[in-house]
C-alpha cells in the first residue's frame, strides 16, 4: 500500500515488549498500520499474536516500547482507553448472553444508558448498511455462530472505531459466511477504517490483506505484501522452515472393507436448553479409511462425540457398533476394550487432567486396555511401565517439554495434543474417533498429527475425524460428511467434495437436496 509512505500511519508500534517470567512473549515488536488498510498479523500459536493484540487493546501492560496513535504517544492502560481512542476488537470467542436478545447484548456493552429500542434501531440500520443482516430482537441462543459474530462486529462498529482488530474471525464460519465477512471488511477499508486481521489461514490473508506482519517466537520476522507471496512462502516465514506436506495414499478395495465403526439411527435428546439434539445419525467407517465430519461449531459435534465415545450411553444398544458388536450400552471403558480410542476436543480437564503428570495422564485412558502392562497384582500401578510408555509416546510424537515428566498443564497446547493423540495411537486402536485433532496446534505439529492419523487408517483401522477446519478435512479425509443442527449428511467421497458443496451443507442446505444434485451432476 502507498498510504503508509506519506506519514499517515494510524498506529505505530515501536519496540513493544512483554515478558512473562522467563518467557519473552513479545520481543521488541515494530508494527505500522496505515489508514485504510487491512493488515494481517500472521504467526503460529504461541508466536505472540494474542499478547501483542492484548497490549494494543489495553488488557495487558507492555514492559517496554511505545505506541503511537495518529503520531502521538499514547498509553493504553485499559480497554476503556482503547475504545476511547477508537480501537475496537472482535474476539475469537464470543461473550454473549444466550438468553438475551442481540440488542440487549449490545446495550450491555455500550452501557451509556440509551434505551434498548434506539440501540436496536441503530444496530439494525448499521447491520443492513454493512451487509450483515441481523435481527436485533432475536435471542442469541437461537442464532448461528456466524450471526453471533455479526453481533460482536456490530457492537464494535457502533462505537465508530478507527481501527478494528479481528482475532481469527473465520475460524467459526462457513466459507459462504466468510465471503460475506470479507465483503464487509472491504467496505470498511473503503471508508478509510483500518483493520488488523489475525489469522493463520494463509489463503484468506492473501485474498483480503494489503500488508502482513509475520511473528515467530515473539519477534517480527518479516513484513510483506501477501498478494506477492505464495501460501508456502508465507508458511515458511511463519514456521521458519518448510512444513511437511501431508501425504494421503489412495485406499484400495475400500468398498469391500469391513465396517469397524457403525452408527445407526443415533438420536439423542438435548441435555440442556442450549445443547443440540442428535437426529437419526447414521454413518459407517470402514477399515482403512478416514471419514471427516465438517460443520460449524455447536451443531451437535460435542454431543455426537460423547455418544460415540460412551461418556453418554444409548438406549438403543445397536445405535453404536464397534467391530461388529453392539456398543451402545457399553461405557467408554467397554468401548475401549473393543478396540476403540477417543480424543476429545478439550485437552485440559477432559482429555487430560491438568495437574497430573504426563505418565499419569497416560494411565487415564489406558488403565483398562493395558491393564496387564500398567497395573500389577492387587491394583498397584507399575510406575516404571507407564514412565517407559509415556517416554515412548513423547519420542514418537516429538513432544517438547521442560521437565522429564511434567504436569499436563505445563505443556503448550500443541505439545499436549501431540501427547494425547500419541497416547491413543500407541495402542494401535482399530477404531479412532478424534474431535478437533489440531485445534490450536501449530502447523508443524498439526502436519505430524494428520499424517499419523492417515497412517493409522492405512494400517487397517477406521478413523473418524470431527473438525471445524475444512482445509484439514480436505487434506486427510477419504470422505466428508457435514453435521448441521444435529443432523449428519451422507459422506461425500473426497473426489466429489468441493469447498462449495461442503460449505452449502454446513450452512444448512437440505442434505437430501445436496445428495440429489450430486447424483445428477
Amino acid at each position, binding site marked *: 500500500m502507498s498510504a503508509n509512505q506519506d506519514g499517515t500511519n494510524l498506529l505505530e508500534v515501536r519496540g513493544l515488549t512483554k515478558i512473562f517470567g522467563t518467557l519473552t512473549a513479545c520481543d521488541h515488536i515494530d508494527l505500522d498500520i496505515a489508514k485504510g488498510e487491512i493488515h494481517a498479523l500472521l504467526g503460529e500459536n504461541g508466536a505472540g499474536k494474542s499478547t501483542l493484540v*492484548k497490549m494494543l*487493546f489495553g*488488557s495487558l501492560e507492555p514492559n517496554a516500547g511505545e505506541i503511537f496513535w495518529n503520531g502521538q504517544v499514547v498509553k493504553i*492502560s*485499559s*480497554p*476503556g*482507553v482503547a*475504545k*476511547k481512542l477508537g480501537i475496537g*476488537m472482535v*474476539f475469537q*470467542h*464470543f*461473550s454473549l448472553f444466550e438468553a438475551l436478545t442481540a440488542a440487549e447484548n449490545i446495550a*450491555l*456493552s455500550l*452501557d*451509556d444508558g440509551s434505551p434498548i429500542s434506539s440501540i436496536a434501531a441503530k444496530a439494525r440500520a448499521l447491520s443492513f448498511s454493512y451487509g450483515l443482516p441481523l435481527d436485533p430482537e432475536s435471542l442469541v441462543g437461537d442464532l448461528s455462530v456466524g450471526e453471533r459474530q455479526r453481533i460482536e462486529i456490530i457492537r464494535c462498529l457502533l462505537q465508530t472505531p478507527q481501527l478494528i482488530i479481528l482475532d481469527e474471525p473465520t475460524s467459526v464460519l462457513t466459507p459462504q459466511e466468510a465471503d460475506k465477512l470479507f465483503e464487509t471488511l472491504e467496505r470498511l477499508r473503503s471508508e478509510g477504517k483500518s483493520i488488523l486481521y489475525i489469522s493463520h489461514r494463509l489463503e484468506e490473508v492473501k485474498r483480503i490483506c494489503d500488508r502482513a506482519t509475520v511473528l515467530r517466537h515473539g519477534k517480527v520476522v518479516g513484513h510483506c505484501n501477501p498478494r506477492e507471496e505464495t501460501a508456502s512462502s508465507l508458511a515458511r516465514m511463519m514456521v521458519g522452515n518448510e512444513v511437511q506436506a501431508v501425504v494421503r495414499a489412495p485406499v484400495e478395495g475400500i468398498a469391500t472393507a469391513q465396517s469397524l465403526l457403525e452408527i445407526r439411527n443415533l438420536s439423542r435428546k438435548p441435555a440442556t436448553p442450549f445443547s443440540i439434539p442428535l437426529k437419526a445419525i447414521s454413518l459407517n467407517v470402514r477399515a482403512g479409511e478416514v471419514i471427516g465430519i465438517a460443520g460449524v461449531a455447536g451443531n451437535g459435534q460435542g454431543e455426537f462425540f460423547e455418544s460415540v*465415545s*460412551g*461418556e453418554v450411553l444409548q438406549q438403543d444398544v445397536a445405535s453404536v457398533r464397534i467391530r461388529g458388536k453392539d456398543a451402545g450400552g457399553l*461405557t*467408554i*471403558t467397554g468401548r*475401549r476394550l473393543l478396540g476403540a480410542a*477417543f480424543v*476429545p476436543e*478439550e485437552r485440559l*480437564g*477432559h*482429555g*487430560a*487432567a*491438568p*495437574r*497430573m503428570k504426563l505418565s*499419569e495422564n497416560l*494411565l*487415564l*485412558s489406558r*488403565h*483398562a486396555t493395558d491393564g496387564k502392562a500398567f*497395573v500389577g497384582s*492387587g*491394583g*498397584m*500401578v507399575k*510406575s516404571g511401565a507407564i514412565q517407559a510408555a509415556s517416554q515412548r509416546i513423547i519420542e514418537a510424537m516429538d513432544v517438547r517439554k521442560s521437565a522429564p515428566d511434567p504436569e499436563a498443564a505445563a505443556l503448550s497446547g500443541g505439545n499436549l495434543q501431540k501427547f494425547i493423540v500419541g497416547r491413543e495411537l500407541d495402542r494401535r486402536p482399530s477404531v479412532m474417533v478424534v474431535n478437533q485433532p489440531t485445534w490450536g496446534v501449530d502447523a508443524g505439529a498439526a502436519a505430524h498429527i494428520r499424517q499419523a492419523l492417515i497412517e493409522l487408517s492405512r494400517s487397517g483401522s477406521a478413523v473418524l475425524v470431527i473438525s471445524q477446519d475444512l482445509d484439514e478435512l480436505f487434506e486427510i479425509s477419504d470422505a466428508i460428511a457435514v453435521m448441521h443442527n444435529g443432523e449428519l449428511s451422507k459422506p461425500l467421497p473426497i473426489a466429489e467434495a468441493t469447498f462449495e458443496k461442503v460449505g452449502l451443507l454446513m450452512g444448512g442446505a437440505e442434505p437430501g437436496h445436496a445428495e440429489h444434485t450430486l447424483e445428477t451432476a
Partner: protein
Amino acid sequence: MMRLELVKRPQRSALFSALSPFIAFALTIIAGAVMFALLGVNPLTAFRIYFIEPISQVWQLHELAIKAAPLILIAVGLSVCYKANIWNIGAEGQFILGGIVGSIIPVLFPQFEGPLVLPLMLLLGMLGGAAYAAIPALLKTRFGTNEILTSLMLVYVAQLFLDWLVRGPWRDPQGHGFPQTIQFNDSAVLPELMPDAGRANWGFVFALVAAVLVWILMSRMLKGFEVRVLGSSPRAGRFAGFGLNRMVFFAFLLSGALAGLAGISEVSGAIGQLQPVISPGYGFTAIIVAFLGRLNPLGIVAAGLVLALTYLGGEAVQSALGISDKVARVFQGMLLFFVLGCDTLIHYRIRLIGLALTKPEGAAKLEAAPKLKEAR
C-alpha cells in the same frame, strides 16, 4: 471505592504448599498469645502449660497417643473423601455408630468371651461406621442431595440414638441408674501397648497402619489414581471411564469404616463401656487434622499429634490457670482458619481494585467484559 478480588495464580508455589501448615501453626501461636494476653495471662506461661508440660513425661505421651489415635484414623479416611471432592462432614456420627455396633457383643452377650471377641467387635465397628456413612452416599447418588448437609445432620441423629440407648434399653441394671452400659469384660477390652509405661492402647497402632495403607492406596494404586482424577477433574475422570457414583460409595464406605474402627477402639480401649458421650468432637477435629496434614496420610499422623496436644493443653490450662478448656476449641478453630487461609493464598492472590478512579464514567464496567473473554 475499593474492591478485593481473588485472582488465580498461574503457578502454585511448591515451597509454600509444603510450608503452609507451619505458617498456619505460627499464626495460630501469635493469635493465641494475643488471646491469652487479653485473658490476663502471661502468654509464655500459658504456652508452656499448654504445649510443653502435657508432653514432658512418658505417661503423658501415652495420653497423647490415646487422643491422637481416633483423630488420625478418622482423618486418614476423610482425606480420601476430600481428595475425591466428596465432603463427608459426618465422621462424628460414623464414629458413634461404630462404637455402638461394635459394642453389641460385650453389651448384649457379656458371657461370650475368648480371643474371637475383640476382632469381631472391631469388624462390627467398621461395618457400623460404613453402613452409617452409606446413608449420605445413597442419598447423594440417588437423589442428588448435598452430602455436607446429610452427613452433618446424621451426626445429631447418632448422638441422640446413643443417648437413648445408654439411658434406655442398654443401661446397666446394676448401675444405680447412671446412664451407661455394663463394663466390658476383659476379652472385650482393647489391650494396652505397654501397660507399665502408660495407657496407650492398640488403637494408636491401628491408626499408624491405616495411615500407611491409605498412603499406599493413594500414591501407588489405580484406585487412588481414580480418587485423585475424579476429585481434580471430574470430566477427565468420566473420560477415563471412572464412575463418580461408585467413587461416592467407595469414599464414604472407607471413611465410615475407619471412623467406625476409631469409635469402637475408643469405646473398648479408653472408655471400657458406652456412655452418653463417647467423643469430645473427634469427628469434627479430624477435619482439621486432615487439612493440616495436607490430605496426605503421613502428614495426617503428624497433624493428629498436634491436634491431640490441643486437647491435652486445654485440660492443662484449665487445671493450672483456671481458663476454660474451651480454649482447645478456639485453638483448633484458629488452626483450621489459618490453614485454609494459607491454602487459599497459595492458589490465589489478592488484588485491590479501585473503581472508576482514573477512568471516565462507565469505562470500568466496559472493561469487565473483555476480561471475561480473555479468561476463556
